């Protein structure tokens, strides 16, 4: 264990403490990501707590934000995994053990809290993997396949989505309408107001120019 957070030997109060071993950058980055995530989750919870149903698009965008924050928190954690794995936490003599006892026990806890154990068990169960029957290689293979399928689904989704992106349809110069009729933007064949003039008052478009406008 590379334990070098504190190398001061004495327990006297005036001992100079050496903080150089504290992975401040890592902790700070993680703290920021987690607090963002916490904030978003609270917002979703509050949205649901409001009376009446929420607009689906508000919820969806909120969910998207949360998911991307979760992704960034996860990747930050992964990035600092080595540092964090090799870090041991212990209290200084000055730590107010009585008033902050619960914080202390949480920080010093080695085992996962029961909720986390439940999540882990659930994740293992839904993954369909069984470490007792499959060896590491097999499990890695399955995980790899899973990632590939996810990737394929995402690309297909984007491809399908692009098919309905009409904003790219155009009928500009250089487009030969005889060879690419399928993607030509429809032309306006007639004046819609002229048709309405007929439907509502029987005014035939040809007559339009000869009959003076009669307005009420």
């Amino acid at each position: 264990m590379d334990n070098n957070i504190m190398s001061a030997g004495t327990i006297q109060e005036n001992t100079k403490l050496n903080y150089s071993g504290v992975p401040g950058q890592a902790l700070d980055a993680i703290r920021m990501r987690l607090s963002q995530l916490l904030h978003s989750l609270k917002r979703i919870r509050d949205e649901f707590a409001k009376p009446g149903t929420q607009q689906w698009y508000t919820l969806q965008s909120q969910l998207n934000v949360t998911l991307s924050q979760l992704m960034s928190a996860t990747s930050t954690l992964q990035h600092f995994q080595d540092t964090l794995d090799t870090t041991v936490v212990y209290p200084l003599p000055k730590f107010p053990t009585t008033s902050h006892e619960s914080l202390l026990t949480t920080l010093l806890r080695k085992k996962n809290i029961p909720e986390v154990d439940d999540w882990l068990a659930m994740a293992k169960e839904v993954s369909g993997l069984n470490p007792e029957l499959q060896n590491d290689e097999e499990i890695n293979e399955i995980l790899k396949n899973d990632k590939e399928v996810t990737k394929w689904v995402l690309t297909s989704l984007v491809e399908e989505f692009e098919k309905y992106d009409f904003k790219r349809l155009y009928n500009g110069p250089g487009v030969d309408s005889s060879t690419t009729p399928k993607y030509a933007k429809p032309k306006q064949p007639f004046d819609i107001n002229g048709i309405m003039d007929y439907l509502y008052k029987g005014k035939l478009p040809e007559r339009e120019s000869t009959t003076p406008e009669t307005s009420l």
Partner: protein
Amino acid sequence: MVQQLSLFSAIDDPSYDLFISTIKTISGNPPVLFANVNTIWNLNPDNEVQQINKKNQLVEPNRIKLSTNVPLDILADSDSSDSQSRAPRQLDYTLMKHLQTDALPVIEGELKSLLKNSGINLTSDSDMNVDSDVKQSNNNNQAWSLSMSDIPAAGTSKKVSIQLISESSILFTDSNASSLTAFMNGLGYILDYSYITVGSKFFFPDNLILDAYKIWNFDSDKSTQLTKGGLLLKAYINVSKNTDIERINQAEKSLLLLQKELQGFVEFSIPDRQSMDSRSEAPDII
């Protein structure tokens, strides 16, 4: 009374196939062929009609629309070279591709007899015994819808057209001959003009309907297609309680969503409200 919220657009004939396949995908429903005949009645100029009723309320003279469905089995190809057998190749949305000329999309004798059975004679006078060759039926059970519409609501911030429509369904006209005409004449109205529409209809969630159709004006001597070269598109939702603001707002949202979804392909817009005004503008109204 019904509030009809609507948006309009148009496409040219060559775009019809792409339009159909696009809307089929978006709506999740197949197109349905529909056809109707509409007769528009205006105030008899012999009557002196006032804009104020006995209670001193403003009641503006308005046209009345009587419409009924055209049975699909009397539809015909209008661009078929063989004028004798104009039976459509297929009675589905593809029929619209064969209706690009001025020729009426129906077998005329059948249409005339349908109207005659309800007591509407387009030639307006003596020759009541036309089409004696067409099979006579005593069945004047053709139901009609009688409706009157207001000029669409004013306001520059309107994102969709909102029009109030009053409608009554006529199930049956009871008399031996010419009853609808006689009845409308008795009401104080005379036949102004008539048209046929044929088109494809798509049903969307939230009661949104999208119609793509063509319109033919017809009278005794000639008919013209007003939508030559393309089809009129109408996306609309009818809100049956005209005071239900929540439903009206929801309907507006649904229409705007469709407008946004099709942006870049078909641009939906609001027609000039003046053009959707069916008030009688006859000069002899006091």
